[in-house]
């Protein structure tokens, strides 16, 4: 009988061991298959997804490519099939794994139960001492644990980084953004701070030669064409380029000229794009970018906006739709604190029917902060945000109004009806006067002091009816304002009363706007000749430097540097 029991016991034990081994083997096999599935799902699928994304980008550029569309459809379907097959495998595999594990544990318990642990009676020592020792040990270890936990908590409080969302006692917390003072230390927008074309940097070079390379620090090819100017923040230079089917933002290293990254701004499929009428002189990338030192924002002829971080990640994109613009959209962007400001002057209707508006987008998100309707027709000047008196104003000009806005709210401050035609020159401020240009016809000076509402009858100080530029923006100091006609006629006028000081026919055609650098003015001709002239009451050429390449964009400046976008290259000029 005992033998029979022993045999039964052995058989039972061996069965338990057998089941445990089989369960263990199955667990290993299932786990291995799950691991292989992990590899497939986590490694292969993302790689193929990235390829699919690439194809989708290509399809956006070539929306008519049916072969590519079919390939995308096929790849996408296959990826989905693989993904769901993988998930099915995971679900079934997990259930099987748990079942085999339950079997493994159960059979192990069964096996263990054949050799139950017999009760042990260990010899008792000195109970009195043992009790005291146990209590003492407990108190000590518990105290040590408490000290360790408290130390950890204090360490956490004192040394772990903590972002406080404190509400200041004086009032609620306000958003932090790039201050206007910070903007004014850089060259963040078209024609520098305020868009006035005034360079406050020191040691700007006055001698160079593009052919011999004299004082040319570096010269880097620009991948795509464009007439926009560079903007500069510390050692980063940004500009854009575009063709009919590609629009890109470029970031260059100011020290080496290396192209650090290229950011694509997606072009959404829009049949209206095919009818977009872009003049060759304007091109698809006429608008200059804007930067706040953390991001760069660009707009293109098709109304597509892209904002990138300084390392080239596309943060957000926005599409305003195809602008109804006679020569192609060309207004550069500007910025005010946490906002990117866009002068969206489109269409041919005036007044309430007009489709034009001034738009402020949040730098962070691209969300609209405010939009203000503008009763004007399509135009090409860039808006500027400048300190007028003690307050910042967003200044715009178009046909027929010069309008100033509060850049924080978009509320209109004042307007003057004084312009007509195809406005392209950017307004500037000097000597508390706002200057606007009507192409070919006149220069208008508006008194900004106490300006409010419609100031057409009250604040226009003077109008000078002379040959005026149709592209270049003016530049001024407290005494004189200079205008530069495309065909090279330079005019100098007194800011007080608009009387002509002199005119001079320059040698060449000009599309780049002039810049004041201290007591000198820099004028860049289409041929690539930089004329440096004195800012006195008479025309006096100081120097003339050749770049040897055609130039259409206004130059940008940095400490001891000039950055010139030529037709195909970006140049950095400065002393070695």
């Amino acid at each position, binding site marked *: 009988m005992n033998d029979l029991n022993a045999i039964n016991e052995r058989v039972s034990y061996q069965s338990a061991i057998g089941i445990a081994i089989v369960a263990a083997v199955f667990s290993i096999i299932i786990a291995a298959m799950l691991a292989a599935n992990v590899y497939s799902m986590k490694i292969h699928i993302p790689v193929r997804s990235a390829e699919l994304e690439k194809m989708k980008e290509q399809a956006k550029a070539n929306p008519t490519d049916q072969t590519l569309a079919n390939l995308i459809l096929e790849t996408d379907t296959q990826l989905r099939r693989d993904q769901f097959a993988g998930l099915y495998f995971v679900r079934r595999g997990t259930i099987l794994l748990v079942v085999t594990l339950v079997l493994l544990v159960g059979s192990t318990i069964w096996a263990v139960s054949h050799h139950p642990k017999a009760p042990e009676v260990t010899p008792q020592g000195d109970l009195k001492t043992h009790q005291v020792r146990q209590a003492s*040990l407990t108190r000590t270890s518990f105290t040590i644990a408490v000290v360790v936990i408290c130390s950890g908590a204090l360490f956490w409080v004192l040394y772990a980084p903590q972002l406080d969302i404190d509400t200041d006692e004086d009032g609620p917390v306000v958003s932090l953004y790039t201050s206007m003072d910070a903007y004014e230390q850089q060259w963040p927008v078209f024609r520098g701070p305020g868009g006035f074309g005034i360079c406050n940097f020191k040691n700007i070079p006055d001698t160079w030669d593009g052919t011999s390379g004299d004082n040319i620090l570096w010269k880097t090819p620009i991948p795509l064409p464009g007439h926009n100017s560079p903007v500069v923040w510390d050692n980063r230079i940004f500009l854009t380029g575009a063709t009919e089917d590609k629009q890109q933002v470029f970031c260059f290293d100011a020290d080496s000229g290396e192209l650090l990254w290229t950011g694509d701004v997606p072009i959404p499929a829009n049949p209206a794009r095919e009818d977009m009428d872009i003049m060759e002189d304007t091109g698809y990338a006429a608008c200059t970018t804007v930067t706040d030192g953390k991001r760069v924002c660009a707009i293109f002829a098709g109304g597509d906006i892209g904002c990138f971080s300084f390392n080239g990640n596309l943060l957000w994109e926005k599409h305003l739709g195809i602008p109804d613009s006679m020569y192609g959209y060309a207004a550069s962007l500007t910025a005010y604190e946490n906002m990117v400001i866009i002068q969206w002057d489109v269409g041919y209707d005036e007044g309430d029917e007009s489709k034009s508006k001034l738009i402020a987008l949040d730098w962070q998100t691209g969300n609209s902060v405010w939009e203000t309707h503008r009763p004007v027709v399509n135009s090409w000047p860039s808006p500027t945000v400048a300190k007028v008196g003690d307050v910042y104003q967003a200044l715009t000009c178009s046909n027929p109004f010069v309008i100033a806005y509060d850049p924080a709210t978009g509320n209109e401050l004042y307007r003057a009806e004084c312009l007509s035609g195809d406005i392209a020159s950017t307004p500037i401020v000097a000597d508390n006067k706002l200057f606007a240009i009507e192409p070919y016809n006149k220069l208008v000076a508006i008194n900004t002091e106490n300006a409010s509402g419609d100031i057409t009858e009250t604040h226009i100080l003077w109008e000078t009816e002379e040959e005026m530029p149709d592209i270049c923006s003016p530049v001024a100091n407290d005494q004189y304002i200079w205008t530069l006609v495309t065909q090279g006629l330079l005019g100098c006028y007194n800011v007080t009363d608009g009387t002509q000081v002199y005119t001079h026919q320059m040698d060449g055609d000009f599309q780049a706007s002039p810049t004041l650098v201290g007591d000198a003015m820099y004028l860049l001709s289409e041929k690539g000749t930089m004329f440096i002239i004195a800012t006195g009451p008479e025309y006096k050429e100081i120097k003339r430097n050749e770049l040897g390449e055609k130039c259409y964009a206004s130059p940008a400046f940095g400490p001891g540097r000039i950055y010139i976008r030529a037709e195909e290259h970006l140049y950095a000029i400065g002393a070695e």
Partner: protein
Amino acid sequence: MNRLPRISIVLLLWLLCTVPAMSIQRFPPPEFETDHTIPTATQPSARSVGFEILDVAVLTAALSLASWLVLKKRSRRWIVVLMLFSLVYFGFWRKGCICSIGAIGNVTLAIFDSNYAIPWVMLLFFFLPLLFTLFFGRSFCAAVCPLGAVQDVVLLRPLEIVPWLETTLRLLAWLYLSVAVLLAATGSAFVICRYDPFVAFFRFSANPAIWIISFSMLIIAIFVGRPYCRFLCPYGLILRQVGRISKFRVTITPDECIHCRLCEGACPFGAIEKPTVEWPRTEYPRGRRRLITLICLLPVFIAAGIWIGHALHPKLAANHPVVQLAQRVKLEQTGVHLETIDMSKAFYSSGQTLEHLYASADQVSSQFALGSAIMGGFLGLVIGGTLLTHSIFWKRAEYEAHRAGCVACGRCYNYCPRHRKWLKDKKV
């Protein structure tokens, strides 16, 4: 034989490698036209009242049966059978939810937030085990809790945890309970549910972090009896305190203890208390001084707890979604993070102002300041109380199941010769 547990551990460790496979990826809907109709997103309908009543009925029946099996039937075998049933019903069938342990969060939120309507089933799941513990000891832990059941069935090679380590580790449970209550009271999170260590097995699904926690806990449970119940479970901690005053409780022997000492090593949970002898006379004056000192220090412990708790409140407040959102938005506004994430995008498109968000976060932070201070004070009281408890001489004449620590698993019954005799007498 000794190799089997070792092999099991290696196998389980190796299985951890498959953890990422359990995470689920999601695909966005296709961007092209297909024949497939994407189903409309719908919310799952609420569980029918009939099933809710069934859950409560099963809980009540299981608690009643467990109490009877533990106190009257004294059968480890039937306790195991009921335990397995509970594992299947409350674990695999109900997928670990509804759960008395997780109900702590719901009950706490219901107390502190008048807008939160707690389901009656949840309320019963929280209070019924407490009620049964008050009368019959921890019958819920014995055979009704699916988390306890998982740990109980995998306990193959129990190692002895020395009493001083047991007491020290239990501090973790107090911390966990305090933080969980604070976070639930402030509406931040139900951390007990979120970090349920066994729900991954019940649902065959969890994120990789939870799978790692689950497997780790399972491996530990092979060697340490019910590690979650003893050192982490917040509900177990509450039941421990209720169990101290329970009317009926587990007794190792059905009648008299003969001091045979056979049951000394029977409990894998360290819940059998030996008879004590008088302390050495030299220890009394020292013990008295220690006791007086600790009583005097108790307010100091509480004050220190309040101070540390209050100092920790900004860190703890960071678990609240409003504070997290405010912090993220602030980092984006200050340019530390240039990319927006779903959370901040949703905020920006909601039209709410930054001032409103920051003010809301500030309000939540103030709640945490008070709550953390109370939590710290409470933990100070627990620490002082524990030290006091271990500075008092407790007189005991027999081998007893610890009133608080005994999970009524019934393992000790079969070690007792008086129990075997009682069984034999019953048969006769």
